[in-house]
């Protein structure tokens, strides 16, 4: 059938036009434009000049290296907790016990509801005077006095991470659950016949087979966490005293709150560089996994 058609068939390209137009205008062009702007002193002033690498020099002479380190620190802790909790949750939801269909439905809400609204609720819970967490901790005599979680550097840092974990864990759980269900039952049955216990079977059959899924999810989760904006912006706007200012927050503050488009763009370019490293790694990994033959 395909041979009957001329070789340079334009039809598939025509089908792609709407999607290409939207993504070129909204994603590709801004990406290029961000790079260009990063070499200018663009701001609210009408005229713009090229300033070479000045924005980058300025950025690195200030506290930006610290922001990069903090972003990675924030991301690493958050992703680590998400992966552990997600694997734990997937194992539990994979157990064939009565009610599991319901449990699976109940896991997803944090991910389905608008992020901002979930974060409002956490904002209340972190409230020192009246919030649930401070209140419960006092009840349990973990702390003596009301504690304002978002007012101190370390606790605000951890609080934003916990909210991020809350939003990200359902996705990890459901994804790993799907991977676990893809593990052939006969493998388990064969091992069971041979007398392998449940823990042994998990360690020697399930875990190795879902390892590609775990790795993929960890990397994707890292990318999403790296891009995370809503949570920190709503809870702390990067404070107190910069303790939750990640690269995204810093970019937004510089460019949108202070109208320093050029300096903001330089920060955005740094983010894109890191993201392309992650993405490159992701494609490398998935193609390697694909070659080895993977579970569905």
């Amino acid at each position, binding site marked *: *059938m395909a041979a009957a058609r001329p070789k340079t*068939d334009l039809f*598939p390209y025509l*089908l792609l036009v*709407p*999607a*290409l137009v939207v*993504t070129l205008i*909204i*994603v590709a*062009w801004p990406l290029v*434009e*961000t790079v260009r*702007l990063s070499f200018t002193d663009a701001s609210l002033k009408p005229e713009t000049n090229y300033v070479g690498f000045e924005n980058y020099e300025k950025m690195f002479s200030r506290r930006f290296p610290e922001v990069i380190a903090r972003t990675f620190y924030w991301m690493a802790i958050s992703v680590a907790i998400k992966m552990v*909790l997600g694997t*734990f949750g997937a194992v*539990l939801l994979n*157990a064939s*016990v009565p009610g599991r269909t319901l449990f699976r*439905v109940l896991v*997803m*809400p*944090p991910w*389905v*509801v*608008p*992020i*901002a*609204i979930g974060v*409002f*609720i956490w904002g*209340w*819970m972190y*409230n020192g005077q*009246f*919030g*649930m967490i*401070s209140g419960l901790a*006092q009840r349990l005599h973990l702390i003596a006095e009301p504690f304002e979680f978002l007012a101190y550097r370390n606790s605000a840092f951890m609080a934003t991470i916990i909210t991020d974990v*809350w939003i990200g*864990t359902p*996705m990890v759980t*459901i994804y790993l659950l799907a991977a676990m269900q893809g593990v052939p039952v006969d493998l388990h049955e064969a091992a*069971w016949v041979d007398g392998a216990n449940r823990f042994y079977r998990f360690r020697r059959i399930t875990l190795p087979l879902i390892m590609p899924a775990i790795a993929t999810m960890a990397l994707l989760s890292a*990318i999403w966490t790296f891009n995370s*904006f*809503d949570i920190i*912006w709503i809870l702390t706007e990067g404070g107190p005293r910069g303790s939750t200012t990640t690269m*995204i927050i810093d*970019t*937004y503050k510089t*460019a*949108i709150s202070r109208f320093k*488009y050029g300096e903001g*763009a330089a920060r955005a370019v740094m*983010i*894109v560089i890191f*993201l392309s490293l992650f*993405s490159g790694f992701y494609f490398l990994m*998935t193609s390697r996994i694909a070659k080895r033959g993977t579970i569905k």
Partner: protein
Amino acid sequence: MINKYRWWEYVLIYSGILLFLSFVLAPFVEAFVVSLRPLDALFSIPYRFVTDEMSFRAYIDMWSNVPLLWLYMFNSFFIASSVTVLALVAIIPAAYAFARFEFRFKNGLLAAFLAINMVSGAVLIIPLFKVMQQLGLLNTYFAMIAPGTAFVIPTGIWLLRSYLMKIPRELEEAAWVDGAGRLYTLRRVILPIALPGIMVVAIATFIAAYAQQFLFALTFNSTNELNPLPVGLFQFFGRQEVVWNELMAASLVGILPVLIIYVFLQRYIVAGLTAGAVKE
């Protein structure tokens, strides 16, 4: 049998699930409890989970204290629906192209689309903000709809493509033999069969569009009448004296539509949401 558990294993599994679900659901429960309590009871010390005077007052008062609440909810729905419709116009033909045709740069283009999932709107916000400013598009629905559309297209293409690949080729070939044009075939043969798949994509897109309304609205819009729910409520969140019970009530009412959709269609939504992470 292999799946039989001993009693202590049941205890272990159920307590694990209980612990896990408590973490996931506690905020919603807390939000509901807070919405039921009068403000002065909320600010009682020491903290109490339940108080005597619980009522649905906040659900009535919020409409007068947050006068634009209806509008925020309408805007959220309007923006998410528009994003969904626009995205489908781009997704359906593109997914069909990737599912059915061989062409140069096919894999490269597909990878490029998927790479969009790697960047967030916040990275691209500076040029978008500048161009919207120059074109006078700030404070319009368009400014909130268009950027959101681009970010839901990749996952939609991916999801619908795998659905379309399962439709047997013979159907189209039969149509071609009968002399049907290719666009006609897409419209009259493929679309009807793919309708369930398109519905899944539409629902997943809607939920994603409903969830991502914060950043673009916060940045591109300062007209309160146009704000979607998250940004509309965010103004109240930022205030010195937050009316917490009403904020929680309004938040819960705002998430109710998606939760209802989710409960009824959760299988499809989970398939749609996880598709972004799935590979061949």
